[in-house]
């Protein structure tokens, strides 16, 4: 043991794991945030030189200021050309046997019978015809997610439309047809039940390290 840091980090992680589920707050925060911005703009206009200040404020809104503070380490903040395409496919079946040689089946993580939790071991996935492949992303950021890492991705508008159409067909289907598998290379990274359609952004969990997530983005 080299000092208290690992113990402190473990204790902080334990505290974090004890956090209850937060309330839904997107809508309320959005409304309050917009009111806040309007108030801020109104104050800027009156405090500034009348019409001139108003024009400047409008220009800022229209063009969008890129001023943004630097945060914790992230990468691939802009458009990303993926080193390996990401496939999103509807799961047809999951078996605990090895995948047959020369089949279209793909190896991936084993999941609990409910299909929501990953359990140790591997499983063999087969897919329906429903699916799509993405080779470019509008942005991708590696973030911490529980004990591992995840990639927050944003789709380009055309892909966002396709993923929304794909995932809306999975909602409410019997298991495992309600599951969407995310495949990179010859492996299913994760398969998760879709309970609401995915829109312009999604989170790909299941990376054991920051470096593993970076490799997918071709940065490692």
């Amino acid at each position, binding site marked *: 043991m080299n*000092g*208290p*840091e690992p*113990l*402190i*980090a*473990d*204790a*902080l*992680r*334990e*505290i*974090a*794991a*004890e*956090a*209850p*589920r*937060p*309330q*839904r*707050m*997107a*809508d*309320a*925060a*959005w409304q*309050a*945030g*917009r009111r*806040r*911005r309007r108030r*801020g703009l109104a104050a800027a206009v009156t405090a500034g030189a009348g019409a001139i200040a108003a024009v400047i404020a409008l220009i800022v809104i229209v063009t*969008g*200021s*890129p*001023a*943004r*503070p*630097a*945060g*914790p*380490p*992230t990468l691939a*903040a*802009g458009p990303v050309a993926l080193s390996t395409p990401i496939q999103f496919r509807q799961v047809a079946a999951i078996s605990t046997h090895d995948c047959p040689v020369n089949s279209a089946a793909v190896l991936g993580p084993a999941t609990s019978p409910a299909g929501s939790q990953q359990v140790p071991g591997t499983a063999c996935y087969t897919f329906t015809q429903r699916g799509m492949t993405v080779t470019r992303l509008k*942005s991708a*950021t590696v*973030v*911490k*997610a*529980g004990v591992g890492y995840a990639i*927050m991705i*944003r789709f380009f508008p055309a892909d966002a439309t396709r993923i929304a159409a794909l995932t809306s067909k999975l909602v409410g289907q019997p298991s495992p047809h309600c599951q969407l598998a995310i495949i990179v290379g010859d492996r299913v990274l994760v398969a998760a039940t879709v309970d609401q359609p995915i*829109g*312009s*952004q*999604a*989170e790909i969990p299941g990376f054991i390290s920051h470096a593993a997530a970076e490799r997918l983005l071709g940065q490692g």
Partner: protein
Amino acid sequence: MDERVRQDFTEFVTARSAELFRLAYVLTADRHAAEDLLQNTLIKAAAHWGRIHSSPEAYVRRIMYREQVSLWRWRARRPETAMAQVPEPPEPDQAGTVEARLDLKGALLALPPRKRAVLVLRYLEDLPEGQVASILGCSVGTVRSQTHKAIAQLKLDAPSLGLSDTEVNR
């Protein structure tokens, strides 16, 4: 346009609120304070969401840390700060180890918010001192002294942790 930005914001919050709430909970050590912190953070983020073209996570986390530090400044002027209770102990395994861990968790939860924020950034987020200073809007020297004082406080409050003098006084 605004509707699209709103949808983007809603999706971000839906996807990340559980993780962001965990951070708020570690920083505040209290469920209600964590909800307030997350809510205030999201309100500030929503006000500028259309201008965040990438890496919203880093942006939101930075707002949260700043918000917590400014809360700390505000609370520092008040005579008393309500302190959360130590969570229920988990199932005991090895009595000594469990006791030491509970001591440490209790000591962490009892730290003043700014010291805890520094430890969260340094050891939970694993960020270098320079970046911690940039996020909190203070100097690297302040980050060092806060870390040092926080660990010294932990050592006092959780003697069973066995932090050595050499580590604390380094």
